[in-house]
């Protein structure tokens, strides 16, 4: 989130037209995704995205509890976004705060749009997102990893969910904000889609953007999401082709 009133004249773009970490305006940070990293979960994934390190475990579908919370028409998807106490510069008090409750809600809704929840009446699907180290863009990194973990759990889906952020800092529309750009910038847009159709499943924005800037941000996101989706695909395929590669040993 942008901090109101923090000096927006901080230089975040250098004289060569590059960002402080050397990236171009529409360049992503490095992203790495691994699948099935946990033993007990029904599905799991790990994502490194810039300095973000996030672990996701999926449990379920399982019968929803308490019983009166059951919906006879569909499973409900309960994502829980949580930050480790040591994941940020100043120790974060453990337990949900208002920010993480809101993030959990929008991430749950975004995942539910991809999951065929009608196949599991009375059930719930729990998605635990543990941010081990935070470095801006945690919610969309967590969501991106979550959809991979849900697919790995064998839960039927319409599509994966892939997310990224764009925003504005030092007067420029930028892709995949860094921590400094997020803190001292002028706008932040967490954004996620169903990659096959481009339908928007998560979108938030705060800051100050013109309509033209929003449109520019969307073009950058559109291109980047295709790339991130391919990383998701590779990670999921690899986790199962690896098994066959051992064949005959």
């Amino acid at each position, binding site marked *: 989130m942008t901090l109101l009133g923090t000096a927006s004249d901080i230089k975040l773009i250098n004289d060569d037209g590059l960002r402080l970490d050397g990236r171009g305006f529409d360049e992503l940070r490095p992203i790495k995704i691994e699948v099935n990293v946990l033993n007990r979960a029904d599905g799991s994934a790990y994502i490194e995205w810039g300095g973000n390190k996030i672990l996701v475990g999926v449990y379920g579908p399982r019968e929803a509890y308490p019983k009166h919370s059951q919906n006879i028409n569909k499973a409900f998807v309960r994502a829980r976004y949580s930050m480790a106490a040591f994941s940020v510069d100043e120790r974060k008090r453990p337990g949900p705060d208002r920010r993480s409750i809101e993030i959990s809600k929008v991430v749950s809704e975004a995942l539910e749009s991809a999951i065929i929840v009608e196949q599991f009446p009375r059930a719930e699907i729990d998605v635990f997102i543990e941010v081990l180290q935070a470095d801006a863009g945690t919610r969309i990194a967590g969501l991106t990893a979550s959809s991979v973990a849900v*697919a790995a*759990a064998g839960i039927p889906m319409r599509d994966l969910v892939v997310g990224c952020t764009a925003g504005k800092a030092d007067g420029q529309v930028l892709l995949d904000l860094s921590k400094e750009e997020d803190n001292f910038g002028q706008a932040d847009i967490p954004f996620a889609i169903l990659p096959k159709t481009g339908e928007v499943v998560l979108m938030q924005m705060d800051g100050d953007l013109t309509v033209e800037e929003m449109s520019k941000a969307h073009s950058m996101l559109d291109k980047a999401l295709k790339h991130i989706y391919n990383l998701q695909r590779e990670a999921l395929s690899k986790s199962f082709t690896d098994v066959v590669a051992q064949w005959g040993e």
Partner: protein
Amino acid sequence: MKRMKEIVLPGDEVRVDKLKPRQGVRKVGGTYISTYLGVLQKSDEYIDVIPFTSPYIPRKGDRVIGKVIDVGPSMWILDINSPYTTLLHMNDSPWRVNSGDLKKFLYPGEWVYAKIMSVNGIKESWITLKDVGLRKLDGGAIITMPYTKVPRIIGKKGNMINMIKDTLHTRIIVGQNGLIWLDGSPENVEIAIDTLELIQKLAHGEGLTDYIKEYLEKRRGDIVGNSK
């Protein structure tokens, strides 16, 4: 021979051609879409997406293995390796049970091999023990596999599972929900479990039966009870 079948992801288009789409395929507009992460499997008639793993949902007629987790006045509640528990009414057991006396026959923690008699729209299901081969499972060991691997474990006309049973002199019951009961000498049961795990891992490759045959041949020396 070690070729992997084609992997598909949720949302991927499935080219159906002249086949009938079945498991893991849904129609959206004019195209067919995979709903699972799995492999594409084509038979003469059907095309399926077989998920690598997937939660087991009770289906009428399935023969499953279940564990008693609770006992009511007239019904047992069982865990069948599914998001949903199932119910066994005392009248569907092979015993003459009086209401309130259920624990005399089946106690929490005990296992049965049962058939799913009915499932309703909200996935509540009832099982029965009244059919050939169904029974309480005494002794032995239970292991869990993704239920989607069960057809490979059984093999065409049972050739895979029969090969394992015969080679290892082990009694094996494969529940369609992915729970498997094994009973025999501990050494042989151990080899059987290794073999089943191998099948699970390699279930989506081709030429599996021959490979498992070779594997069992290699372990011949470890098997107890073979005539020299």
